[in-house]
């Protein structure tokens, strides 16, 4: 960006609790800075995945560059980096934050500071960002900006005295936000003449241009023709194009220098060569050290993903590779299942991450999928001294070969207001949590410390936490290590045949309850067939629960519609369509839904 002074660049993100208006404010900023005309504005410009629009959440970080003419008469470059809100995507948030110098904190004028607000603020502070509060939705009748200001100061401990009071929806006072971005968010630093040092914070794959690397230039300059080196992977290439981010498009420019956020394309075809978090440098004049990057995240939750149509296996592999490109936390390797055929064992950060990946595969890549029950990594110590790390329950050795097993334990910190402490303690108790202590961080807010088995929190712990605290509890955890545990494999037999895709590892004390619930759920999901179908749960060959799907007695369309057979045919077509979505296990047809239904046992 020749001609742009570093002092006139602002790299920032917006952080907020879900629904507090982050994306709407981003839209306003883009609109007000004149990058887009009102006509070009589509609601929520930054959420460009269909999935994000529908769910109203941000999953992938999005970046956009706008130009703002400030009241002081100068032009400023704004690089706005949108961030995801959910705890599963903290990793994505970290990536985005590493590219910023400051953050706008959006707080709802009616709801005030909420759990996620805190989690995100702490993340931003961890990255040494200056946080600038904004109070949104002041047009709501229930808005109480003064109380919210106090809350921000008391709970978060940042100055909120001159926080703009805005309505992102109507555009009220958004101008003031723009002015404060200039005055409160620091300009980037860095020497454009130094050796190139750029942090990859994201990347996408484009079938024409190959890998497009998103980066923040910390030191030096990069332009077309610069020979680059990826410091971690060792890959080298020559830069084909550099540029910045328009709304939904890439705009080429001559060069990117220290302080800028932009993209690089190079002759990079292999997605594995560009790892998010890696440092890009000049191959001929490398910098001394790579940037610290950010901590590598390891998948916590594993499950099998299978294409409904076996022929789509290669498509699924391609799609996973593409997704992995800008989602380093996603891991996968091939596996096979008797019930489901060829598929992949995939690793995720959490259950929401799993769901999102699954939905993206289905929508963006048009794949119909079956998912198996999620699992964590267990350590199985065999009698012969060998130890295996188990991610797929089906691979559990025969019990006679197992000396003992270990499961991952997390150290959980749950922040909760005092009125919900009892409820949350009960929840942790139910999930085999071990109480470690509690501290009050202020009069009405405490942190509960627990050690919890990871497999107890991967299903629905987060949802349970939210519902039992009316959304106020926030939750963070880190892996503590492995502990010996009484674990068993729970198998499901349908019509006396074991369905490998439904097996999972569970603490022996919960096996009976979970087995019973699974049988009940499956009974409701498996349609009646020509014969009676027993559904059994077994541990080590011993049946611990049983349900029966009764045989179909009657299914007949009696009436004759005066020669109008179209209704008959429609009915038969519907029946046949339903069958297509079934998996054949032995001679029983199991709807794909059934495999998914057992993932959400605690909903009802």
């Amino acid at each position, binding site marked *: 960006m020749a001609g742009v002074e570093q002092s006139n660049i602002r790299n920032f993100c917006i952080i907020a609790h879900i629904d507090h208006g982050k994306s709407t404010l981003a839209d306003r900023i883009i609109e007000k800075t004149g990058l887009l005309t009102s006509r070009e504005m589509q609601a929520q410009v930054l959420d460009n995945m269909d999935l994000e629009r529908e769910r109203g959440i941000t999953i992938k970080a999005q970046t956009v560059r706008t130009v703002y003419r400030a009241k002081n008469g100068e032009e400023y470059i704004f690089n706005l980096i949108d961030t995801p809100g959910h705890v599963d995507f903290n990793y994505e948030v970290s990536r985005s934050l590493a590219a910023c110098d400051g953050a706008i904190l959006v707080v709802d004028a009616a709801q005030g500071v909420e759990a996620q607000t805190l989690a995100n603020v702490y993340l931003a502070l961890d990255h040494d960002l200056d946080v600038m509060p904004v109070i949104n939705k002041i047009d709501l009748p229930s808005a109480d900006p003064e109380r919210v200001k106090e809350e921000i100061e008391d709970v978060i401990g940042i100055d909120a005295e001159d926080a703009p009071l805005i309505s992102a929806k109507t555009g009220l006072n958004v101008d003031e936000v723009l002015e404060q971005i200039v005055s409160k968010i620091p300009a980037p630093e860095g020497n454009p003449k130094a050796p190139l040092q750029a942090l990859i914070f994201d990347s996408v794959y484009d079938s024409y241009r190959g890998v497009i690397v998103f980066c923040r230039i910390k030191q030096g300059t990069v332009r077309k023709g610069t020979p680059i080196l990826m410091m971690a992977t060792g890959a080298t290439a020559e830069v084909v194009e550099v540029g910045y981010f328009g709304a939904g498009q890439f705009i080429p420019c001559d060069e990117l220098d220290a302080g800028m956020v932009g993209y690089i394309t190079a002759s990079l075809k292999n997605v594995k060569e560009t790892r998010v978090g890696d440092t890009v440098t000049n191959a001929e004049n490398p910098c001394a050290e790579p940037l610290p990057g950010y901590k590598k995240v390891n998948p916590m939750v594993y499950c099998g993903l299978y294409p409904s149509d076996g022929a789509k296996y290669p498509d699924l592999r391609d799609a996973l590779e593409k997704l992995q490109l800008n989602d380093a936390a996603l891991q996968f390797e091939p596996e096979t299942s008797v019930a489901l055929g060829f598929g992949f064992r995939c690793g995720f950060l959490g259950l929401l991450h799993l769901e999102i990946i699954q939905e993206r595969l289905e929508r963006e890549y048009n794949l119909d999928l079956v998912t198996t029950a999620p699992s964590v990594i267990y350590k199985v110590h065999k009698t012969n001294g060998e130890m295996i790390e188990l991610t797929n329950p089906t691979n559990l050795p025969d019990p006679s070969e197992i000396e003992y097993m270990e499961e991952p334990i997390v150290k959980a910190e749950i922040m909760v207001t005092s009125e919900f402490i009892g409820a949350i303690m009960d929840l942790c108790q139910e999930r085999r949590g071990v109480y470690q202590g509690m501290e009050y961080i202020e009069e009405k807010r405490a942190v509960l410390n627990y050690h919890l088995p990871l497999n107890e929190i991967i299903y629905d712990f987060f949802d349970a936490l939210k519902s039992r605290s009316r959304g106020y509890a926030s939750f963070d955890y880190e892996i503590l290590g492995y502990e010996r545990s009484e674990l068993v494999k729970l198998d499901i037999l349908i019509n006396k045949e074991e369905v490998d895709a439904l097996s999972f590892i569970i603490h022996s004390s919960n096996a009976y309850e979970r087995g019973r619930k699974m049988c009940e759920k499956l009974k409701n999901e498996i349609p009646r067939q*020509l014969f009676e179908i027993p559904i059994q749960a077994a541990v080590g060959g011993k049946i611990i629960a049983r349900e029966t799907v009764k045989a*179909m*007695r*009657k*299914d*007949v*369309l*009696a*009436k*004759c*519609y*005066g*020669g*109008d*057979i*179209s209704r*008959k*045919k429609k*009915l*038969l*077509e519907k*029946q*046949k369509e339903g*069958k297509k979505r079934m998996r054949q296990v032995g001679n029983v047809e199991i709807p794909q839904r059934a495999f998914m239904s057992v993932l959400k046992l605690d909903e009802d």
Partner: protein
Amino acid sequence: MKREELELYLHIPFCVKKCNYCDFLSASGCEEEKEAYVRAMLREIQSYREEARRYEVKTVFLGGGTPSLLTCAQTEAVFEYLNRVFHIAEDAEITMEVNPGTVTPEKLESYRRVGVNRLSIGLQSVHDKELKMLGRIHTYEEFLATWQQARKAGFENLNVDLMSGLPGQSLEDWTGSLHKVTALEPEHISAYSLILEEGTAFYQWYEQGRFAEGEELALPAEEEEYAMGEAAIQILEQAGYHRYEISNYALPGRECRHNLGYWERKNYLGIGSGAASLIQNVRFHHVRDRQEYIRKLTEPDVNGSGKAIQSAPRQLDVNWEKLSVSEQMEEFMFLGLRKTAGISRKVFAEYFGKEIEHVYGGVIQKLTEENLLEQTGNMLRLTHRGMDVSNLALSEFLLDEACTETEEL
């Protein structure tokens, strides 16, 4: 000249009032509207005068609604036009649906005069309590009066409709209906089970929970409904009625030829609003709205175009669809197998020019193994169990799209 066979269906979409379970195309209407509708039908019949020469009409069926709501003059006019335009076979089966409470001895006399030789009487139940709940306009006594008048007028081919699986109905209620009706010795009995259709009063009641377990009008439990179906087969067969289709029973030789035509994919022409036709493998309906139907019949193009009915849709027609060979095969199977006699391999091979095994070998084997289908010589038919779960069995005969393409090659 050898004429092709044709069946005629005439739809009379008028009722005194709509029954609570009914989702057929019908509604009450004033005398003027009825008259306008009949005139439109006459015009439609007239429009076929060129084409009709190619056909010999083997069956005529006036259905509804309530065809017996027509006046004697209206019925006679319809038949006058039919006879003028179509060549109706000497031995044609001519059926009229009648509802008790809408027929008089005079009307019955008039039906005889115009050639109606079969009546289908909507009874549904012998219990007045059930009739009332169904929203029928008659009692069992009134049905009996109609019945006796019909016999007296000389009708010797009568059908009675009965319905099982009704809200609040017990197995005894149902067998009671069957016994009472078989004692009258009708030539034909249609024994349907109730289907709750969206848009009916029953469906609303169902959604309101009035048919829930424990309520007075609880729908029979699955086992009980099943027993009702079994009881019908047993009682009717004992009384000499042969089950020739999923819901239809007849004394020997009294099967309804018109309805068999639907299962055997004979050519049939529907006259009146919403009426469905199958002509030379083209399926279409008329517009359902009867005002629209009347309006369209006043437009000039429907009058005697001279073109073949199936050559192109007329203004009157909707959902006009030429069946592919695969669709014809599907229909051949899922309609034909509704008959207890089943379908003939020979007829399939003659009609489609290939052995049935080439198309349905796998399905036949699978269904046979599941004991849903059986073969006796040339015939393939559903077993008793196959009839019970006929939707499941028949859906297997739908062909995949991919497979359809290869069929066409």
